[in-house]
């Protein structure tokens, strides 16, 4: 069976700059994936390869079973793509643009379109050149989704939306995911928002994939420990194989660890310490994935502190 997206050892260079390096990625049908990474880590470049807007310098990219540089109208009408900075015709009103684009898609669903326009409160009379960024993003979302694509790629679909619109868009996406047989990729810095709906996370750092796992696996793979030793037996250094960051003294320490389940018992007995283990949310896991190759993260925020990621 072919998968909607198959990337095999893709490297992309722009001049001397390496934008993607040895990226291999398979997205099975009916998956809902969050694509995360810092600014300039290659998220947009990756999505553009999937739809054939970029050709890999080396490697192979197959989309819906077709080499992505040969995608024709029959494949493209099964794909929805909303770009972070879509280039629309500035003079067009939102209403005109939607009609214009919808004409290219035989499967365009006018009822769905009207439902989205109403729910997201889209100003149809606004001209694209002067519309608010939020309105432009909503229109772009409608243009990408109303033809019931089998593969839906959304590049930062939430960044310009207010919290209520973000919630609405996420609810729509879940609803589409459930009703259409669709594979979705959502790139976003808004980890708090996408954490609610995605099944798995693909994380890019400097053009390489540093994590490709289900959200549950990621959450179970890291924990924050509050460690106490009444006898003051804690060491000054911990095993870097699983302790990522730590602070504290002989009596108390706070540390972020990987694979907590398999180290807990041994840690307790080694230092006769009491350990309180706390799960980490995606926002706290993210810096661990992208920090210095994932081994020594520079970040050492407190539990509950937000990691500021530029939009």
């Amino acid at each position, binding site marked *: 069976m072919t998968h909607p997206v198959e990337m095999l050892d893709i490297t992309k260079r722009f001049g001397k700059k390496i934008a993607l390096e040895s990226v291999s990625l398979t997205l099975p049908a009916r998956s*809902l994936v969050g694509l995360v990474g810092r600014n300039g880590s290659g998220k947009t470049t990756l999505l553009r390869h999937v739809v054939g807007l970029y050709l890999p310098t080396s490697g192979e990219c197959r989309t819906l079973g077709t080499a992505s540089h040969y995608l024709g109208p029959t494949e493209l009408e099964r794909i929805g793509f909303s770009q972070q900075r879509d280039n629309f015709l500035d003079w067009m009103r939102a209403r005109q643009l939607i009609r214009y684009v919808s004409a290219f898609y035989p499967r365009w669903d006018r009822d769905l379109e009207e439902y989205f326009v109403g729910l997201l409160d889209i100003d149809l009379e606004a001209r694209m050149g002067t519309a608010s960024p939020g309105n432009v993003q909503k229109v772009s979302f409608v243009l990408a989704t109303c033809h019931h694509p089998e593969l839906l790629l959304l590049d930062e679909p939430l960044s310009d939306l207010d919290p209520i619109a973000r919630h609405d868009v*996420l*609810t729509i996406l*879940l*609803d589409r*995911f*459930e009703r259409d047989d669709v594979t979705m990729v959502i790139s976003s810095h808004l980890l*708090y928002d996408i*954490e*609610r*709906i*995605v*099944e798995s996370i693909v994380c890019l750092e400097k053009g390489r994939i540093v994590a490709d796992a289900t*959200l*549950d696996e990621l*959450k*179970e793979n890291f924990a924050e420990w509050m460690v*106490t030793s*009444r006898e003051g037996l804690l060491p000054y250094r911990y095993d870097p194989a699983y302790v990522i960051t730590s602070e504290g003294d002989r009596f108390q320490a706070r540390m972020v660890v990987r694979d907590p389940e398999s180290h807990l018992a041994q840690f307790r007995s080694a230092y006769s310490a*009491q350990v*309180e283990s*706390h*799960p*980490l*949310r*995606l*926002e*706290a896991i993210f810096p661990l994935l992208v920090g210095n190759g994932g081994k020594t993260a520079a970040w050492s925020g407190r539990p509950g502190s937000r990691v500021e990621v530029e939009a």
Partner: protein
Amino acid sequence: MVIRVDPNSGIPVYRQIVDQIRFQVGSGLLAPGTELPSTRALSRKLGVNPMTVSKSYAVLEDEGVLDRRPGLTLIVAALSPSKREHTAMQQLRATLEPAATIASQLGVPARQAGSLFREMVEKSDRDLKKETA
């Protein structure tokens, strides 16, 4: 059935669902034979991915808390008394673990901590009887 999940708590959502359903079955809030909402209905209500709900259901089915009836609807299984007690003690243990750590850190002797817990359970039993009387 009412369930509350926090997708941002760090605890995988499927585990939050499993824990709550297991508790509701154990406490008798969900009686044996009760039909569970479909994966789709529950995921929609909670605003989470349907895969998450089906994963929770699969775990509970595996544990024997839920039964799949022909026709694919899920119902609350009838647990044997020993199995029921076993899951109850498991849940209680998980809840008490942090309390036990705190007690020993505060230097509260085990005997005293034990009698405090006994007192609290007895009070809670009395309150429950008052409510049902």
